[in-house]
């Protein structure tokens, strides 16, 4: 690791803060895509207005400031700063060195270009080399095999399978818990 190497820049994308002026309109559009909402959230899919999204941004930043157990990023294209998704480290348990990780790419047209993999690489480095966490967990519904594939390829192992924990589209699905230890990540670098 070189200290000169940016923690926030990958080949095509970068990790960046929320843009309170511009982002809400784009994100509100994403919430009208139930397919996306089901991939990133266990709550019932429910579209959100621009002002609801703005309020959520404020809540997120307040939580980040007060609880100190959340690190929230937007994902943007390096070329034109266009918002393409979000990524976060959450439920950080400082005394045990644990945390949870998730990310989402909002527009289906921006998926399958490797942006998720680039984001995950940055986020893992941030979690292990900047926050000095000991391990990360990811919760992935069985109906999201693309996410499972992404995390497994980054070195995560399937640790827990909560059988039939979710109901979507008229049937029940397992919830997968994936885990990655700092030492496992380090040997892959």
């Amino acid at each position, binding site marked *: 690791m070189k200290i000169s190497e940016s923690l926030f820049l990958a080949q095509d994308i970068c990790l960046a803060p929320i843009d309170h002026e511009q982002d809400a309109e784009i994100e509100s559009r994403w919430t009208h895509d139930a397919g996306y909402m089901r991939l990133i959230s*266990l*709550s*019932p899919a429910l579209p959100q207005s621009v002002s609801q999204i703005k309020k959520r941004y404020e809540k997120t930043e307040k939580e980040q400031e007060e609880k100190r157990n959340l690190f929230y990023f937007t994902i943007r294209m390096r070329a034109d700063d266009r918002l393409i998704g979000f990524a976060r480290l959450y439920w950080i*348990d400082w*005394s*045990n*060195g*644990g945390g949870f990780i998730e990310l989402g790419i909002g527009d289906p047209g921006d998926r399958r270009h490797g942006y998720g993999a680039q984001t995950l690489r940055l986020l893992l480095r941030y979690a292990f080399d900047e926050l000095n966490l*000991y*391990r990360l*967990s990811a919760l992935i519904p069985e109906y999201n095999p693309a996410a499972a594939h992404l995390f497994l390829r980054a070195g995560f*192992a*399937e*640790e*827990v*399978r*909560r*059988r*039939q*924990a*979710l*109901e979507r589209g008229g049937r*029940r699905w397992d919830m997968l*818990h994936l*885990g990655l*230890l700092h030492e496992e990540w380090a040997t892959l670098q």
Partner: protein
Amino acid sequence: MNNNLFRGKLVKLVVEEPQTVAKHFHRWARDTEYWRLANSNPVRPCSVKAIQSWVEKELEENGVELFEFSIHTVADDRLIGDVGLDGVRWNHSESFVGIGIGEREFWGQGYGTEAMQLILRYAFSELNLQRVSLNVFSYNSRAIRSYEKVGFIHEGRARNVLQRDGQRYDLVFMGILREEWIARYHGDGNNLGD
């Protein structure tokens, strides 16, 4: 139909005032072994007032997802612990469950096991959940044995989640499905089924 949902042979489920809950929990929280069996966050002293406002805030903010009970002995109506469904996801008919017996003299005698059986009956036959989940620290073998006895199935372990006294310990996940609960408890002679 069984309408006697809150009472077993050894224990009954009671809803207490937050102040009563806080007074007991404040005492149990000073027992560091109890705390470290039940919580992953660092042990620290908690005032009655702090616990009471935490309990009240939880109920106010997450009331529709929380079903928290105090565990009383049937014999002398003593408050010995708590059990609760702490986060029902209604759209997925699933919840996590948590339990703790704060009074040490009641450890290892079936009080917690029966309280867990009562809360499962409540979860499946009154709330109509499809599944109940829990996690438990790998060094808490007394709890793991009790959950196995109740009918929970092992579903995996998150590796090295806890660091305690210089060692790493796993977080063990267990779950029970509605049909597994029915198969085990339906027509149960001890009156712990539907």
